[in-house]
């Protein structure tokens, strides 16, 4: 668990991060979102002490980060930035091996780990291990950047706008991949973005920052239904709110008995997807299938609409 405790950063008279506190549970993904200049990156960089806090502290599993030597602390925390910062003079395998080599793993173990990560990120080792960063596409560079950050099996991963340089299609795929890998490895992630859609898509909890202060730290549903103030409400997007809410709810939760006509929808899809299918096909209801493909009921327009607003 990561506890951020009254963290403050001051440059001269300017407050960049003002008394921010929140905690990230083990194995969850917290997104820090806000406009540019809100202090998100500075907050993130205080966690691995790239920026020294003016006041406050960060606890990782109860241990104060100031008690750990800087470099040692950073060996234990993965770090991915926008643009990735891959070493242009080293090939993919050597880039990924950076932290394990700093930790003096033996070379056999390093090679094994590199291969494992290339497989995990769907980069064929024979093809990619010896390529140089400039020979990779943007999406491949991004995957190498994340693989490099995960190489020494850190329990915590910090990501600063990791998808900022990708186009929309590749970004969406990269976000899915990140979620899948996070579920699989159980890594705790703190991710900074200015993109609200990305925050809703990835975050178990979202921290909204503005002008150095933390305005609200809550689950996506809470943020939608009970925004702390006008700024959060505007940032969340008043017009978008019902649709954002629907995309957080699985079809499973709006399941009704009955048999509808048409192509079945999976119970694990979101109500947002279901509604979009209903609108497009002009039907009033869709059959719902479970993971094995068996029909388990239906989902209707009326049922979906009831859930697109705050519960009384």
């Amino acid at each position, binding site marked *: 668990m990561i506890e951020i405790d009254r963290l403050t950063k001051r440059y001269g008279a300017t407050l960049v991060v003002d008394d921010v506190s929140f905690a990230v549970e083990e194995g969850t993904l917290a997104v820090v979102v806000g406009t540019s200049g809100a202090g998100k990156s500075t907050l993130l960089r205080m966690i691995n002490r790239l920026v020294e806090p003016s006041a406050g502290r960060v606890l990782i599993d109860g241990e104060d980060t100031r008690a750990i030597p800087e470099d040692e602390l*950073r060996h234990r925390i993965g770090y991915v930035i*926008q643009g*990735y910062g891959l070493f*242009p*003079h080293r*090939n993919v395998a050597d880039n990924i091996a950076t932290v394990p080599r*700093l930790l003096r793993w033996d070379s056999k173990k390093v090679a094994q780990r590199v291969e494992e990560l290339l497989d995990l990120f769907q980069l064929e080792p024979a093809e990619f291990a010896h390529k140089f960063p400039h020979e990779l596409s943007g999406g491949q560079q991004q995957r190498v950047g994340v693989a490099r950050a995960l190489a020494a099996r850190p329990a915590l991963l910090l990501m600063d706008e990791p998808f900022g340089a990708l186009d929309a299609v590749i970004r969406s795929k990269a976000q899915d991949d990140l979620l899948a890998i996070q579920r699989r490895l159980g890594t705790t992630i703190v991710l900074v973005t200015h993109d609200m859609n990305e925050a809703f898509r990835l975050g178990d909890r979202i921290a909204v920052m503005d002008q150095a202060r933390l305005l609200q730290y809550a689950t996506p549903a809470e943020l939608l239904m009970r925004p702390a103030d006008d700024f959060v409400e505007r940032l969340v997007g008043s017009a978008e709110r019902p649709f954002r809410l629907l995309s957080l709810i699985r079809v499973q939760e709006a399941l009704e008995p009955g048999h509808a006509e048409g192509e079945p929808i999976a119970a694990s899809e979101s109500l947002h997807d279901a509604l979009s299918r209903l609108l497009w096909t002009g039907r009033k209801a869709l059959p719902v299938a479970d993971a094995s493909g068996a029909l388990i009921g239906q989902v209707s327009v009326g049922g979906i609409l009831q859930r697109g607003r705050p519960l009384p």
Partner: protein
Amino acid sequence: MSSTASRTNTFGVVPPRPALSLDHLGFAIAVLIGVALFAAPFATYRATRIASGEARLLIEALPIAMAAALVLVALGVAIGAVLVRDPLSRLGSAVIGLAVLLPSLGLSAGYLTPADNTFARVSPSLGFWLLSLAFSLLAVDALARMRLGPYGRLTALAVGVSALALLLLSGIWDDLSILREYYTRADSFWREARQHLLLASGSMAAACLLGVPLGIVSHRLRTLRIAVMQGLSIVQTVPSIALFGLLMAPLGAIAASVPLAAALGIKGIGAAPAFIALFLYALLPIVANTIAGLSQVPSAVVDAARGMGMSARQRLVDVEMPLALPVILAGIRIVLVQNFGLATVAALIGGGGFGTFVFQGIGQTAIDLVLLGAIPTVALSFAASIVLDALVDLSKGTPA
């Protein structure tokens, strides 16, 4: 009205290149060859080394069969330069041209010098220089069009140097005036050559030893960077002879008051002030390029390195220096080429080097002696720039 016409001309569609077009450079080379063969003297004959020269046309300078052969080959090269576009063929014809031209200069010297006359001097004249310029241009242009990699360029240099060494060792040029000058002072030639190399590369090495660390520190500390760059820029504006002069007084004073310094050969004139002056000139390019090289390392790369827990030393050695190396090497290239030239001036204050021959030759109005100092200097600069250019490329290139 006229403006409309000129606009359509400027932005109009460029007509496609005709299949068989005349090569502009090739045309210029052909003109050079024509002038050299028919309108310029091939060699100069002088009764003694300081007598005024008499021009000899190509047909007078060589036995008639040799002259005819040279004319034919040169005309062939000229036609090829205009019509043939394939770089390999162009290179081949330039090499054949040089292979005929260079030995024939030596033969001409033997032919023009009366037997048993050791005072007469034969030196190349305008026609020879134009021919060799034309052939070399063709060869260099062909090599440039072949876009050789660093290893290819080094090989080309090695082949050229070996060919030149072969010509010199074969003795075919021994009757030429410049080699006559060489043979009368072979000992001092190699002594001055060693001195020249020591001055130029020693001062460069010293400048690297101080300049690279200074550049690294200046890159981090802004105030130091501004002070260092301004100081070195001022040094760079002092003319070399003036700098030698400026160093005489303090070094003379040191030699007079510190016996150890005098014992080490440090005095107001000689090699020490020359070495120091070259060193000071070399510092600016080295420091400036070290700073520039380190500043162009992408900040995301440095940030990522720091974020992964690389210490300051690991970042410098494993990330920043390798990425700055091509720029630093480019600085070393500038320094080495500049030093080989500047070291010539060292002779003025008794520092030795090839400049000795240049200034002696000027004093005696013996142009051959001037060339004996100047030609090796130019050749060294040229070779150094090719070798370091190749090194810059190698340090940039990521192995495939």
